[in-house]
């Protein structure tokens, strides 16, 4: 949670990195087009029926014959997500419709929904001209909107599960779901901040609640879960959280962010990390700050990915620098993984936190230059 400033965000591609705890999202693209390209996925292979396509809308039909839930992605350079389909349970098929201009891409299946996935090359040829600069920027807005929708869908789903656990008095399950549901929130938080009152209701920390306003939302339930463990009276709080999340999801899905908002949002997400997560202030009872850290980082990367085509035209050196610094922070953060999730903030030494802080600073300085590149 933080103060509202520019909003941000946007776009398209997600670049989810790692599965379960990643921001990623679900999406059911409406679609069309020629006969579907068959993708045979199992736990060790990802066979794409046709890897040389014509520009336009492509439809992939992904069948999972493995034993793990899988996902399927189409990535442009920099792991910009062009399209993805999630939650393909063993034995099921799902379709992905994706608009692909001429270019080179990668496909990926992610059995177990984590890691870089099983990658393959994909070539798309045709007459589609490279985007003009303006078109590249306009595309960023649409791209990011797709990202937001994928996150909000997951946010809603995981919040529902969390709320159900709280109302059922299942402390252990609620504790496990708390950082997961928040992940999707943290990926797109700057969008949420556009909507004034809702952000503090959902994500307000105790000290920022103004007089006369009740302390509600994620952090209220966090406090009860981790301090007294008594959530018997939290039913109404949980119901309100879900109502508020539903409202913000509807609003966020309708919001179109400008490229400049995207650029500022990418920076603000890192500011969030620098000011709230590194210090352990965000999740002071649960100490699950690194989940939020990872989500903020991914959200920032998603916003930059949406702007990438425009940035590559205008400032390729900056793109290179951002790639380097994103990779650096991801590497540093990656050392603190714990299974599918993250170590507690309290498990990190001061030296480790400083290292993360240095990494965020190194990334945030070049990111702060993106807005001017977009605006010129």
């Amino acid at each position, binding site marked *: 949670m933080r103060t509202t400033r520019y909003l941000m965000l946007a776009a398209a591609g997600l670049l989810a990195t790692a599965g379960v705890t990643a921001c990623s999202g679900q999406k059911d693209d409406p679609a069309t087009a020629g006969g579907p390209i068959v993708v045979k996925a199992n736990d060790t292979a990802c066979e794409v029926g046709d890897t040389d396509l014509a520009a336009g809308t492509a439809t992939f039909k992904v069948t999972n014959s493995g034993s793990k839930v899988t996902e399927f992605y189409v990535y442009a350079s920099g792991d910009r997500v062009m399209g993805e389909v999630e939650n393909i349970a063993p034995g099921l098929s799902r379709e992905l419709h994706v608009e692909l201009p001429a270019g080179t891409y990668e496909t990926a299946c992610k059995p177990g929904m984590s890691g870089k996935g099983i990658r393959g090359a994909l070539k798309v040829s045709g007459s589609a001209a490279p985007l003009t600069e303006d078109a590249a920027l306009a595309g960023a807005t649409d791209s990011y909107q797709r990202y937001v929708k994928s996150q909000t869908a997951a946010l809603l789903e995981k919040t529902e599960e969390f709320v159900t656990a709280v109302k059922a008095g299942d402390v252990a399950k609620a504790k496990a779901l708390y950082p997961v549901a928040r992940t999707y929130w943290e990926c797109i938080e700057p969008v949420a901040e556009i909507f004034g009152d809702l952000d503090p209701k959902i994500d307000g920390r105790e000290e920022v609640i103004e007089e006369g306003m009740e302390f509600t939302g994620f952090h209220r339930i966090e406090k009860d879960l981790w301090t007294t463990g008594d959530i018997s009276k939290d039913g109404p709080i949980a119901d309100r959280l879900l109502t508020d999340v539903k409202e913000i999801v509807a609003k966020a899905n309708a919001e179109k962010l400008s490229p*400049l908002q995207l650029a500022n949002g990418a920076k603000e997400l890192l500011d969030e990390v620098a000011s709230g997560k590194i210090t352990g202030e965000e999740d002071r009872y649960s100490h699950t700050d690194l989940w939020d850290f990872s989500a903020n980082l991914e959200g920032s990367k998603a916003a930059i990915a949406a702007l990438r085509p425009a940035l590559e035209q205008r400032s390729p050196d900056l793109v290179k620098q951002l790639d380097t*610094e994103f990779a650096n922070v991801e590497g540093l953060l990656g050392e603190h993984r714990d299974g599918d999730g993250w170590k507690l903030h309290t498990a990190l030494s001061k030296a480790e936190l*400083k*290292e993360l802080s*240095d990494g965020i*600073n*190194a*990334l*945030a*300085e070049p990111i*702060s*230059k993106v*807005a*001017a590149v*977009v*605006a*010129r």
Partner: protein
Amino acid sequence: MSGSGLSRRRAITLAGAGAAGVAGVATGAGVLLRGAPDQAAASDHAAGAVPFHGEHQAGIVTPAQDRLHFVAFDVITKDRARLVDLLQEWTAAAARMTAGQDAGVLGAVGGMPEAPPDDTGEALGLPPSQLTLTIGFGPTLFRDAEGRDRFGIADRRPAALADLPRFPGDALQPQISGGDLCVQACANDPQVAVHAIRNLARLGMGVVSVRWSQLGFGRTSSTSRDQATPRNLFGFKDGTANLKAEDADLLRDQLWVQPGDGPDWMTGGSYVVTRKIRMLVETWDRTSLAEQEEIVGRAKGSGAPLGQRDEFDEPDFAATGDDGQPRIPAHAHVTLAHPTRNGGARLLRRGYNFVDGSDGLGRLDAGLFFIAYQRDPRRQFVPIQTQLARHDVMNEYLRHVSSALFACPPGVRDGGDHWGRALFA
């Protein structure tokens, strides 16, 4: 600061167009700032600029300014080229800021509205204030704590840049000691000094990380005979017998690294030792005047050595009082630190008083941030401090909590030169 000349903003506007070559701009604008329409600026010495380029770095024999912000950095990149690029960027920014200009060419308010400004802005409208920026390279830049030669310069480490020994009584805190690089910012306006360090730290994101930094609010030494001797927080004049800018022969023998001393890149440079010395002022203040004077070896009022009349009189260690005891005790601070007791070794001190708030036990967290420049710490600081650490009665009131050593290269000659050029050549 009225009547002190052009504001940074105006100076930049004037300099603006002809901005070819960063260093060129710095020089040009510096002249404008200092010389130009308002002659009052030139006459206001404390507000003026100290030349950045020269044979030696500024900030060593430069008459000690009133304020300090000292910072030590860890280098966090493994990429030598990035480090060298940063040193070049820093040099350009330092040349600009010491001339009273903004850190970047666009300035605090001259860039695009959508972009963060390339200067942080808190020095807008302030004169150069004799800002000096002095860089040093620490032992760990050459070989880090794990023994790695990260930047391929281990064979260029001067022998004189040997790790300091542990002195008896040291209570050093590693997190505020050492460092791969340091920058000493001195100015007559604290805002100007802090502005300079903040902007250098910002330029360094991703390449260096601030390890520790220290503010000093009042100089405790004079480095020129034009300056009165200031007092430290024990209330005594400090730096009476300091090396001074006017002592050309002594500076050659005791301060500046000479050809043949070590690697050529350090010739014309100097080594700096910093020690953060906490002073237990509350117990000191309960000590009688006579005892305080015996501990120091000087009169508190005049600063004269005990038994003498004038501050600058030479101490007479042979003189005895009515009781037959030496007039200046053998373990007085002035005795132990005196060149005659240390093989002639002298230091150029330019330390600063600090108060870092309070310590939670109702005491001021106060003391002296000791800074001493010298030609070879092995022959100067180390033997002197060894004497003091063993015998100085003053130690009862002191805690050395941080320590660092840096090799400060010679001056940046001109706009084509930069910090570390010879070291990384």
